[in-house]
């Protein structure tokens, strides 16, 4: 995708754009229908738990997609925001007895602050350097949580109130929230801001020369990603009722990134599919016991060899004709 495409605009493009949007909408509806009907097929506690986890993972991946997919900022410590969200809601709900829903505004504020604190000094860096610094921040958040008393230290926080008592209701709630989050991320990606993100991804210097305030634009991507991650953290805390630093390791950052790359960088449906594959595969392979992660790794390598562009790669709307 290069900036030369902006020249070709005509009725054909408009028609193509309209059909592709319609098509994507249909697929989204079909996906949502599958998610909504799944509990009628299988509603064992295990299946509901795994499906809820997958939905939360989709939200994480769509958040990281804003940062990595849309804006091209390689973030290896994305789990930091997930942890910040989970811990903020966990601490507020257990120490101050707030219902989990009431912690959401606080979570948004805290994750925005975290996004600015982490983003402001690091976003002056580029590519590999940024990746290394974000990797460091991910670890800093985890080790901080491990050593503070307010976060319960290594044992973490337990007894977090859930959003609903019934896991099936919680599943539907999660699917609803995640759908809104995914659609929101996708709409953001198509907005004026989203076009600026893609421009920065393709050529930061050219973007700067064209009058895009790249630093602000990148910070916006970072903050949006942080809020998505933080809200996913709230859902995670509600689902597990207990959180500990062990849940926020580098491996999780890597898995979320893998979901984004596997699905197709910058492609909303791709990232959803990638996240579902990454979160369900280990559970499907659970019965292989010792070979579980071996099989997981082999399958991922095969996926990437067969489809290096991702399972559902992003197609530029401007180019379709």
């Amino acid at each position, binding site marked *: 995708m290069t900036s030369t495409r902006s020249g070709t605009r005509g009725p054909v493009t408009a028609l193509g754009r309209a059909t592709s949007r319609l*098509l994507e909408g*249909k*697929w989204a*509806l*079909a996906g949502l*229908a*599958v998610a909504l*009907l799944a*509990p*009628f*097929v*299988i*509603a*064992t*506690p*295990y*299946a*509901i*738990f*795994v499906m809820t*986890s997958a939905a939360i993972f989709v939200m994480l991946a769509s958040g990281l997609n804003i940062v990595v997919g849309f804006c091209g900022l390689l973030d290896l410590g994305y789990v930091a925001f997930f942890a910040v969200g989970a811990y903020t809601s966990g601490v507020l709900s257990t120490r101050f007895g707030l219902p989990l829903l009431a912690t959401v505004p606080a979570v948004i504020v805290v994750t925005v602050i975290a996004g600015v604190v982490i983003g402001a000094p690091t976003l002056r860096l580029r590519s590999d350097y940024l990746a290394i610094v974000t990797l460091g921040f991910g670890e800093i958040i985890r080790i901080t949580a*491990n*050593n503070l008393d307010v976060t319960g*230290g*290594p*044992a*973490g926080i*337990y*007894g977090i109130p859930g959003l609903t008592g019934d896991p*099936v209701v919680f599943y539907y709630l999660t699917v609803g929230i995640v759908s809104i989050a995914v659609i929101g991320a996708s709409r953001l990606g198509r907005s004026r801001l989203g076009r600026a993100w893609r421009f920065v991804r393709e050529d930061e210097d050219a973007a700067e020369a064209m009058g895009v305030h790249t630093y602000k634009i990148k910070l916006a991507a970072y903050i949006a990603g942080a809020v998505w991650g933080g809200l996913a953290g709230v859902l*995670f805390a509600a*689902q*597990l*009722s*207990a*959180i*500990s630093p*062990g*849940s926020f390791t580098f491996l999780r950052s890597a898995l979320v990134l893998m979901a984004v790359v596997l699905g197709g960088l910058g492609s909303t449906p791709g990232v959803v599919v990638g996240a579902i594959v990454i979160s369900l595969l280990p*559970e499907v392979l*659970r019965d292989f*016991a*010792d070979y*579980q*992660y071996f099989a997981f790794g082999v399958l991922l390598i095969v996926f990437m060899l067969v489809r290096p562009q991702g399972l559902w790669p992003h197609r530029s709307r401007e180019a379709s004709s």
Partner: protein
Amino acid sequence: MGKSRVAAVWSLAVSVGMLTAGCGQGLLGGGSDAGGDKGPITLGMLIPQSGSEAAVGPYMKNAAQLAVDEINGKGGVLGRKLELKVADDACDAQTAVAGANKLVTEGIDVSVGGYCSGATLPTLPVFGKANIPMIIPAANSQELVDQHLKHVFLINGTGTQQATAAMAWITKQGATSVALVHDNTSYSKDIAVRTQKLLDEPGGAETVILEAVTPKESDYSANIHNILAKKPDFVYWTGYFQEGGLITRQLRQAGYTGSIMVGDGSVSEKLAQIAGGDAAEGVYATMTQTPDTLQGAEGWIAGYKKKFGAGPGPYSNQAYDAVRLAAEAVKQAGSTDGAKVISALEGISGFQMFSGPLKFTSDHTLATGGFQILVVRSGKFTLQDALK
């Protein structure tokens, strides 16, 4: 093309949903028939089979299987066979909760697993909601006790009991300045902090440093430097054996000649192998009874070796006892009903286990931890003092 495919997916999803809804697993199906009075009595076991603590999984699983086979050999319980179902918790909260839900779905009657405290904690409500009693063989963090849940029973000594045993040995050795070293995991920090509280009481030894190390590193010289700067004559490491071996070696290399003691997570022959040479000779350990230190357990060890081709390891005996205790409780309750099994467990008195005759306190922990002091001789942990 695109439209018809979407329509196909829609209709497929709807029809599959309608068809399978009657099968009993969907929302519209009837309740599950698991936990009935027919078929085998199933015991579920959540243990780490992957991840950082995967090494301990087979020891616990094999020992539990041994107990199951022995009981089945004698005709089972209430005329029904026992069956063991194992799920991986990877020592991770989310994997553990998924595993717990899987076991609940499979209709287990009693849970006999739980090794990592951090992974066991979030599974408590999952089993509690399904009214499944939990006999936890290894995990022993104080947080498990502090929730005072009716369905949770711990058959491993608690952090408090281990700290008390450590304190007793420190006093007995006449140490004056103690360095406490932990790895910041829930279990390890718990023991170190509780030992520090005991040391804080006036008289006797003093804590000179409470040092936390980062697990999975290979060079602990910075920590060793901090510790030795305080000139301790007794070092107590409360973490696991990988780091324990390295810390022991690096302490000795740095010229430390005082006593070293390790917690129960470090009791493994690998500690001496990692420390290398005879660096670990004379290292003490606070440990519950192990197959090696049990009198009269030779037959049990031989049977285990014959069946699995390798000797038992850490927490083999607790896992074995957890299964036996579950079977005993079901027998006394006369049913697999959760509430009845729980009251049977509360009522059990004098049931013979490796840790001695069993009687639960009102906290559902062992009345005595059964901790004793081991010492490394020729690379093996042997009994030094039973602390009786």
